[in-house]
């Protein structure tokens, strides 16, 4: 066997160009379906795990997929909002613990998640360095976000401009980093967490500026009415929240009316969950979804696409194998005189057949090994460097 392996190896090495082409083809036709299969299973598992850990999400009417993607994975389109009152109402029922979510802004390319301290307990998130936010304008960074932004407690980060060319848009808010979270291998690693009020300040719903008592110049008032005073642009708003100017930050209107993108509801028990579903399903201005069901429905769509891709890959695989068979037939024909010589010398028929079979085996093994390695690298890359979810 060792000698046959040697002959087969020598042949493949001598015709290395041809060998490389065949191995590359085999690698490709195995790598593509294998990687799709492995990554789909990986994402399915990741999606399902987080979905199963999140019993219910309440949002404004709209796409349940967008609601789940935004509130669980901080991805997807901007959601229609529902009022903060939803949290207060839910809390009053004693049926569930409400966790407000406001995911609309970004800083350094990472989503800024406005929430409450309950979120960290709910997701079992621990601080690796520093502490959790306790004051307006403070943030705690997910592990990946901290690493990518090269940020540490004490640093400040700016929110991203939503539209650079819109002069009327909100100015970026400088936020103080007070902590870094332990890596959780979830979407939380790629997010920046803060109090929900801070996200309202980022969105311009809340702001801080010098008190009007200090301002004597009439030029600082654009209009003065019975209900409101509109200040001119001469009044500079604070773009950084500090202990000194904290008291000047305020929100116009009732807090209950301020927007949230979602509310995570953690029912106290199954009975509470059933009652909650019954109550909210008849409410037209809100929707309640169970992420587990939504993700299962999303995966059904993904699996249909995967089946379609598998069919294509199957056709490509068959074509490649047919081409490989053709190459082998032509190769055997070209090498007929070589085989005749070996037979005349006295080579046994089994050894004569074993050499090209061994070559084929080595080619296929190389293709499989390369494909497996590439798939492993792809999976490693996705899990270590690009968790996505």
């Amino acid at each position: 066997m060792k000698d046959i392996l040697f002959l087969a190896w020598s042949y493949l090495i001598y015709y290395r160009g041809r060998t490389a082409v065949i191995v590359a083809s085999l690698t490709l036709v195995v790598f593509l379906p294998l990687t799709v299969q492995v990554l789909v299973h990986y994402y399915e598992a990741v999606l399902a795990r987080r979905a199963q850990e999140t019993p219910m999400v309440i949002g404004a009417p709209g796409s349940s997929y967008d609601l789940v993607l935004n509130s669980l994975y901080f991805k997807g389109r901007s959601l229609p909002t529902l009022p903060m009152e939803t949290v207060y109402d839910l809390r009053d029922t004693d049926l569930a613990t409400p966790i407000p979510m406001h995911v609309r802004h970004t800083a350094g390319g990472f989503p800024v998640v406005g929430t409450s301290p309950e979120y960290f307990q709910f997701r079992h998130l621990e601080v690796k360095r520093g502490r959790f936010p306790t004051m307006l304008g403070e943030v705690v960074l997910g592990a990946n976000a901290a690493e990518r932004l090269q940020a540490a407690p004490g640093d400040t980060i700016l929110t991203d401009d939503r539209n650079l060319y819109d002069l009327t848009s909100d100015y970026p808010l400088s936020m103080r980093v007070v902590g870094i979270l332990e890596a959780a291998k979830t979407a939380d690693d790629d997010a920046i967490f803060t109090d929900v009020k801070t996200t309202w300040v980022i969105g311009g719903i809340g702001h801080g500026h010098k008190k009007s008592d200090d301002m004597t110049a009439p030029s600082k008032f654009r209009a003065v009415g019975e209900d409101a005073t509109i200040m001119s642009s001469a009044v500079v708003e604070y773009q950084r929240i500090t202990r000194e100017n904290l008291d000047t930050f305020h929100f116009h209107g009732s807090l209950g009316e301020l927007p949230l993108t979602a509310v995570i509801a953690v029912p106290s028990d199954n009975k509470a969950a059933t009652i909650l579903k019954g109550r909210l399903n008849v409410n037209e201005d809100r929707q309640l979804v169970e992420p587990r069901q939504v993700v299962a429905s999303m995966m059904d769509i993904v699996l249909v696409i995967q089946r379609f891709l598998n069919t294509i890959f199957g056709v490509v695989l068959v074509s490649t194998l047919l081409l490989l068979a053709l190459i082998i037939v032509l190769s055997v024909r070209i090498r007929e005189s070589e085989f005749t010589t070996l037979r005349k010398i006295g080579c046994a028929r089994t050894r004569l057949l074993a050499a090209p079979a061994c070559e084929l085996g080595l080619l296929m093994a190389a293709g499989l090994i390369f494909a497996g390695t590439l798939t492993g690298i792809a999976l490693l890359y996705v899990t270590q460097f690009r968790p996505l979810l």
Partner: protein
Amino acid sequence: MEPTQAKVVLQDVRFSYREGNFSLEVPELKINAGEKVALTGPSGSGKTTLLHLAAGIFQPHRGAVWLDQFPISQKKPILRRRFRIRHIGMVFQELELLEYLTVKENLLLPYRLSPELRPDKLARTRAHELARHAGIESTLDRYPAQLSQGERQRVAICRAVITKPRIIFADEPTGNLDPATSGQCVALLRDRGEGAEPTLMMVTHDRSLTDGFDRVIELDQSFMTMNKASVG
């Protein structure tokens, strides 16, 4: 039929191809141990066919072939092949070196093809000795495509003798080589003075290469005539 002490014996052999009307009849041919016999004759006279019959590559329709008292024509193909690789050296008209093996590995090829032989250190030493004797030592790590025709031929001859065969069959081993190189190649086959010299049966159409041979057998169309009496 009783075998004699002759190394190669063909007795009442008849062979014909399935297609065409060529047939070869050999009433009797005996070649003694260490004897060097040249087979000559015009193209199509059956020189190569006779060599293949004698080497056990072809199976005769009638009669028997004995090689070193081994009734090769009566054995199954697997036993014939096993005998050939162990005890017979073959040089072909077409050089038939494996292009993907170096010269050294081509020389050691019989060792790799037989489960009974091992390409051990002794075999490698022998490959080096043979290559030095044949003047191709500097080419051992090169591939056949990098060799001249004469060098390739010498590699083929060295490969045929590396296992110290009892009998060597050579089919037009000089091919299209120039006369000087042809002479060197034939001398390499003929004059391997290593104790018990092997029996040599060589096919050639060039009468000038038969000098130094013990016997020259001239084949005529479809039957054998011998210019010397058969020995045995």
